[in-house]
């Protein structure tokens, strides 16, 4: 019993310590922002590996998610004779929820895990300590550009996901199932609000991008510098990112769409 309590206390303490280290790490990363701005090349390279390389998986997934929404929505809505509102259903679910959330989950799996593995390996092969020896701050040089790249790419990726998904829903809805194309778009435009839906979706994706990049980089930076440690850190990145994205999504949704 005492052992159990001891263990419990230790685990709690460890997780709080980790959260503290994570916050300190985040502050360090953010304070490096100014020193990245004079070197846009660093940021650009990371935008390539974080954003451009995620482009394909995001657009293809977006297309299929939109097409599935078109199909499922059509079957349900046609029972009520309301096929014309298919556009609203597809667009609202994509812009409000699926766009930011699914693209953030894909982002955590595609880019976040890669970031963790990269940083973890840099640590394991002592490249980070090597940099410190040369009086180069690894946080400013390595971490901050990656963080900014993830933070900037995420809203763009989520917007692409939603846009492609809406087009996919239209392809299935009016191309395959015969919903009127004009009704699809006009109902959508009448019911989707720029402020309430689009902007809130973008805010969500910015928050998710921030959290997913933070977790990925911190897990890499905090990894035990062995091959096993790096693999564990990569797993933790994906698991923790998924948890935080879905949990935050609930909180953000409750805050944003609560008073409707």
């Amino acid at each position: 019993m005492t052992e159990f309590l001891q263990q419990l206390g230790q685990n709690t303490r460890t997780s709080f310590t980790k959260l503290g280290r994570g916050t300190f790490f985040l502050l360090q990363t953010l304070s490096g922002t100014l020193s990245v701005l004079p070197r846009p090349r660093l940021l650009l390279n990371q935008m390539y590996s974080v954003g451009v390389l995620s482009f394909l998986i995001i657009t293809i997934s977006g297309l299929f998610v939109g097409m599935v929404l078109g199909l499922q929505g059509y079957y349900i809505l046609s029972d009520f004779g309301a096929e014309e509102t298919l556009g609203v259903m597809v667009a609202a679910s994509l812009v409000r929820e699926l766009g930011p959330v699914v693209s953030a989950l894909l982002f955590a799996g595609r880019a976040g895990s890669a970031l963790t593995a990269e940083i973890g390996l840099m640590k394991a092969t002592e490249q980070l300590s090597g940099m410190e020896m040369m009086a180069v701050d690894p946080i400013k040089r390595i971490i901050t550009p990656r963080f900014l790249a993830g933070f900037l790419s995420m809203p763009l990726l989520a917007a692409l996901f939603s846009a492609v998904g809406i087009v996919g829903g239209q392809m299935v809805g009016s191309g395959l199932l015969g919903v009127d194309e004009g009704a699809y778009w006009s109902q959508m435009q009448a019911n989707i609000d720029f402020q309430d839906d689009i902007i809130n979706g973008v805010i969500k994706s910015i928050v998710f991008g921030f959290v997913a990049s933070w977790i990925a980089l911190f897990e890499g930076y905090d990894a035990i510098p062995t091959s096993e440690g790096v693999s564990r850190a990569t797993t933790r990145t994906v698991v923790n990112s998924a948890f935080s994205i879905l949990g935050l999504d609930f909180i953000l949704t409750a805050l944003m769409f609560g008073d409707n």
Partner: protein
Amino acid sequence: MQHTSTQDTFVGLFVASGIVGLFFLAMQVSNLSSFTEHDSYTITARFSNSGGLKVKSPVSAAGVKVGRVSAISFDPKTYESVVQMNIDSQYNTLPDDTTASVFTAGLLGEQYVNLEPGGSDDYLKNGGKIEITQSAIILEKALGQFLFKSAEEKK
């Protein structure tokens, strides 16, 4: 770093397509293009019951959308609902004896304000008030009256 320039091109393409996606969402998907703050003027109407009317509900005249509801409040003195509407300023020739009624689009559809123009030569101006209003029909009330009536007839 021999691929630097192609990398730049890809990053450029990526950022451009992301912005195009956002632009598409703003213009094609949302109501931003149809409801950019046109010049509009505000009129108010008092209903004894505004039913399920909401802020941003459409205001239409002869079936054409001419504006939106901008605010709904309860007047604690007269116990009426005060509905403020923004009317597109291109429709500035509504007579000041216009009737406003709360209608429902379809049987279960959303509620909207219908404006029925009167015959006056004076037009409603910014801050104008609509004097003649017709409240929303509350389904439960109508049903209750109907049931009450049919019960009376049976006696």
